[in-house]
């Protein structure tokens, strides 16, 4: 299973499914990371975490640990 965490800056993926439950998952979905959406990893913060992605035409930052919840293909 490939997750958003494994994408490198400049790579694009499509969200297949979100794992987990609760507030973090809901928040991620509320921000538009839902099934079928295309995500581009823009960059990684200088200290290695969090990362910045581009989704639905805007920029979003996420922690790598939370990226593990997002399965992509």
């Amino acid at each position: 299973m490939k997750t958003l965490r494994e994408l490198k800056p400049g790579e694009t993926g499509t969200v297949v499914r979100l794992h987990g439950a609760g507030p973090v998952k809901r928040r991620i979905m509320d921000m538009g990371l839902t099934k079928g959406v295309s995500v581009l990893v823009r960059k990684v913060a200088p200290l290695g975490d969090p990362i910045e992605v581009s989704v639905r035409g805007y920029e979003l930052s996420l922690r790598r640990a939370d990226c593990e919840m997002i399965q992509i293909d």
Partner: protein
Amino acid sequence: MGIQIALAGNPNCGKTTLFNALTGSSQHVGNWPGVTVEKKEGRLRGHADVTVQDLPGVYSLSPYTLEEVVARDYLVGEKPDAILNIVDASNLERNLYLTTQLLELGVPVVVALNMMDVVRKQGGVIDVAGLSRALGCPVVEISALRGEHCVQAAEEAIRAAQAGQAAKPQRFDDALEDTLGQIEALVSPCCPPAQARWYAVKYFERDSRAKLDGLTDAVQAKIEAVIVSAEDAADDDAESLVTNARYVRAAVLARAAGRPAGQHRLTVSDRIDRIVTSRVFGFPIFAAIMFLVYYISISTVGTMMTDWVNDVLFGELIPPAVEGFLVSVGCADWLQSLVLDGVIGGVGAVLGFLPQMMVLFLLLAFLEDCGYMVRIAFLMDRLFRRFGLSGKSFIPMLIGMGCGVPGIMATRTIENERDRRMTAITTTFIPCGAKLPIIALIAGALFDGAWWVSPSAYFVGVAAIICTGIILKKTALFAGDPAPFVMELPPYHLPTVKSLLIHMWERAAAFVKKAGTVIFLACAAIWFLQSFNFRLEMVNAGESMLAAIGGVLAPVFAPLGWGDWRAAVAALTGLVAKENVVGTFGVLFGFAEVAEDGAEFWGTMAQVFTAASAYSYLIFNLLCAPCFAAIGAVRRELGGKWTLIAVGYQCLFAYAVALCIYQYGTFAVTRAFTPGLAAALVVTAAFVWLLVRPAKRPERKLQRAAAAE
């Protein structure tokens, strides 16, 4: 009864600008009941009977963040007459996601389409009439920044409110509609017909905050059965099904309006961001900006203005004038002293910080509005979240080096309440400008002005912040899931002067109000205690009630090495302003006028203190409860209960650290085992245990486990 219009929309969509344009100066700022989320309302310009209620900026009406709960409780519970939904046209899809939720509330909705100029600059167009048809509600194109068509949008909302026609919910895919229809039939006997769709969706999502009183257990079981069968059929959980369906719908709406958001564009803002948050330049740029903020607000412009207010306005101008007036009207000595020493002295000391703070607030407002503040969080998150702080905690602490009051007020920029509390509690551990005289006094009197005393004070401050973060993060008060760091990075843009000034003024006004009430009373009380004895005769501080209180308190501080009542009294007067500690020592040791570092009585100090007790005294004063102005700021930011927790924790922590310093320091010299040393060992053991004990966070672990499957 007038008309209530609620202003709802995403963060960063221009909602505050629109609110200012609609209400002008008739705003009323307060807090939502029970929480520290800001509540703003005002009268609509030119319509005395129309109230505009500004809701917190939210991305969704989920039950998880405080802002979302506040917004939906108001929308569902108090039912405004109409919702004015401000939508960022340059980010249509995600903004319409919230719109699909607002349309289900059973309230008339009007959409105000903002930032069309950005869309046009990018060469896009939006079919406003088509969007209005698809949403089934009026859509008005506005420019909040230039104030264009804002009032028209509000007037459209008034018409919608008067017509009273509830908005029509968007339709999802057939399978989901079928399921929602079944639940709607089950809940509709218990709620107003207009809200049936909302409750059906919320019950389907298993939203624990949506509760209908009349719903029996049997009906709830039926609903659960419907949900489970829908989840099985779709192989996904109900919450995800609804969220997905909403975004599918939002994408369809955006595409129909001619504004699909599928492609990943690289804008000017992205190019700036590539440099500003890059691996190589990210931190140097951050350091340079922080230095500039500190330099301008604390070291140069701000300080010059503050010095003027302190030394000229509250030094040479107001006191002599007031004194002259009081003498000329033949006012009693005690009243003169109250007005001059107690009120003007105390409140003046606090208001002196105002110019510094206004410069600082202006700079912060700029960083916030231009979009750099969230980048700071992006850069620093990794470092700070280890101790339960936010990436944005750095700014309050940096400012706290100048003065804790603006430092605490700068915590406003931290959205997450837990991070904000933690930052507000720890910010004053950093030695502020007013604590420098205490450091100079102790270093000069007991340590021959040794170079290491002053840096060690900062080091202790930083260590105290880190330890506090680690300890408090594990307590029940701060336990639970870490705040999700899922944060929008809005494009950079140049803020307008007007919005910066409004921003600055709001914060400064809040502080002045505080100085006029709580701080005023506290200063008068301390003045009263140090000017009178128990027979209410005016005496000098050495024979006052405060001295008597100091005498009672002194034994409490004996284990810290300074059971001398004068030390206790000096620490107490530090509550008015920390630099008072030095002055009070001067008075109690019998010197009327002393230099800022108290050089005149260094000899006397050296007789009363040992090296260990002096350092313990220094550290206690640095870490314990801050001055009234700072406590007032904490109260304004966190509320009364949390102020007590913060001050209580700070005093306890300061006491424990000072105890250990004195006892270990004394043991190093005398090599004698005392009960005090035993107490210090126990405290140290407890401290280490608090630091290393495992945090309780089972929920989160489960979630991770599920994610790892």
